[in-house]
């Protein structure tokens, strides 16, 4: 459960203050599949960094599963990310020269999980993300863009987080591969009940979610469900 209220984020470059987020507030319940949509430069990534405990807001409050994250230290935030959040980024997702399996288990390395347990869970996660077992020992630079994102999804899943954040996960993929990756998110949401927040500037991508939050110039301008529409689209 995510509750944010009156979130603002001000960047200071030299003498100039720039408000990237202005009074943003919403609630996302467990198991929702939400898209945050807006044009480039509207503050989506900034919002995602705050939601993902990578950064703290300049003002406002953020409760994740009832815990206030607005005033935690770097290491405390790292612990939250380790326990509760999985990330999929647009690019540079994987460690180079490292096997798929090792990449997928990286969060477990920092979560002090034993070697046997890690291996088991990384395989399960890769399987959930739809990656062939034949690729497990490939180096990450031998994979296609779609495969890379699936390894990234597996890595986001591996520590069994309650929240998965994906920032433009299809930005570097062709439409067909992008569809497969988005399908994976949908499946994880429906079958495993994961809360998923998908950040994108493309309407077609956002429409895979059940709910779309529009932001523009750092403000939420629209917030509505898409559920009905998706069911209609499928039929």
């Amino acid at each position, binding site marked *: 459960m995510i509750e944010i209220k009156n979130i603002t984020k001000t960047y200071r470059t030299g003498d100039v203050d720039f408000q990237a987020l202005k009074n943003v507030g919403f609630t996302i319940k467990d198991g929702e599949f939400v898209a945050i949509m807006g044009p480039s430069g509207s503050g989506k990534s900034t919002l995602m*960094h705050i939601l*993902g405990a*990578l*950064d703290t807001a300049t003002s406002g409050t953020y409760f994740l599963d009832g815990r206030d994250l607005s005033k935690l230290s*770097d*290491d405390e935030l*790292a*612990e939250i*990310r*380790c*326990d509760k959040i*999985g*990330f999929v*980024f647009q690019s*540079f*997702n994987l*460690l*180079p*020269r*490292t096997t798929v399996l090792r990449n997928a288990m*990286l*969060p477990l*390395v*920092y*979560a*002090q999980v034993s*070697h046997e347990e890690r291996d088991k869970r990384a395989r399960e996660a890769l399987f959930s993300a739809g990656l062939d077992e034949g690729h497990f020992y490939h180096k990450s630079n031998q994979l296609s863009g779609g495969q890379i994102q699936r390894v990234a999804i597996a*890595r986001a899943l591996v*520590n069994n987080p309650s929240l998965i954040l994906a920032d433009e996960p299809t930005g570097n993929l062709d439409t067909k591969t992008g569809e497969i990756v988005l399908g994976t998110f949908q499946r994880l949401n429906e079958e495993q009940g994961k809360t998923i927040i998908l950040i994108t500037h493309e309407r077609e991508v956002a429409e895979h979610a059940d709910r779309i939050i529009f932001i523009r110039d750092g403000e939420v301008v629209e917030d509505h469900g898409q559920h009905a529409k998706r069911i209609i689209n499928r039929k």
Partner: protein
Amino acid sequence: MKYRDILEETSSALLANKVRSGLTMLGIIIGIGSVIAMLAIGQGAKQNIQGSIEGLGSNLLTIMPGVIQAGRGIVSSGRGSAETLKNEDLPVIEKVEGVAIVSPELSRRFQVVADTGNNTNTTIMGAEVKYAEVHNLILANGNFFSAEQVRGLGRQAILGATVASDLFGEIDPIGRKVRINGSVFRVIGVLQAKGGFGFSGPDDMVIIPLPTMQKVVSGLDNFSSVSVSVVDKEAMAQVQTQITDDLMIKHRVKEADFSIISQQDILDTMSTVINTFTMFLASIAGISLVVGGIGIMNMMLTTVTERTREIGLRKAIGAKRRDISLQFLIEAIALTFIGGAIGIFLGWLVSFLVTYFGVLQTSVSWYSILLAFGVSALIGIIFGYYPARRASAMNPIDALRYE
């Protein structure tokens, strides 16, 4: 993060850039290698000199006429000018408690001509029978002269190993004749070679009976030195003071007109000189270690910048500051440690070769190996600390945005 994981990360990071890791390590390898080699060579030189000095008799006091003053050498000594050690001093010295043997000696350099026609300039040592015992001399061949021969102004000579080979080469010198300052001597013995380190030892001398030296060869009746062997090595200092006091009374002087040097004094002086020299060489080598350390720091800073996105990613998925800083610190320490190990091997190899080719008997001490390991780990920590801190302090967002 577990230690096994850190080691896995470290080895994959170092192997990913083998050439760079190798070149960076080279600085440490050369630094540690030269420190080890320098210490081993210094240690070897010290043991060598200690050995040759101790070989001359470690419980030995040498009384010499004249005063040795720091920076001025022997004052009021020299030929004829300080004839302060005479026959009547010997009973005084012999009476001192703790004195075992007193050996009066008179030495001068003379030209020696052998019956082979060869000649050499060497020290002629006039001595009594006990000379051999006091100075731990061993005969390779023949006999030492007897007390009768000494008393009877005998013309017998014992050759040092170098002199023997200079004068007679491969020929057996026993029974042959040598001429010293106009007198003919029969060679009755040859000393075993002692070796030595630029130190005029018994190899380069001819020993003849003391009265013959005084009355026939040199025409002097004083001694150039009196060697005293002491019963108990621990009592050296005490015996030294006692002899000084007694001789001053005997000579009726307020300031000693003679000097007493113990082998320990020579040993100490030599050791100090060599230690200083070794430390000097080792610190020059140490400077190359610091340069090597700076190389490590340079490489680590480059690595941290290159891997900014990787660091951002690791932090995003839950790495704490400690995990990141430890990863980079261990990487630096691994570089210096491996470099240190190779350097120790190389330094050992150098000192082994020095020994093998007979230049000097060197010895690599455990102490220097431990020191080298400690220093290389320390260099890793010192020069790896700043880059590691820089990595761990990175903001994950800035790191992820970094192109």
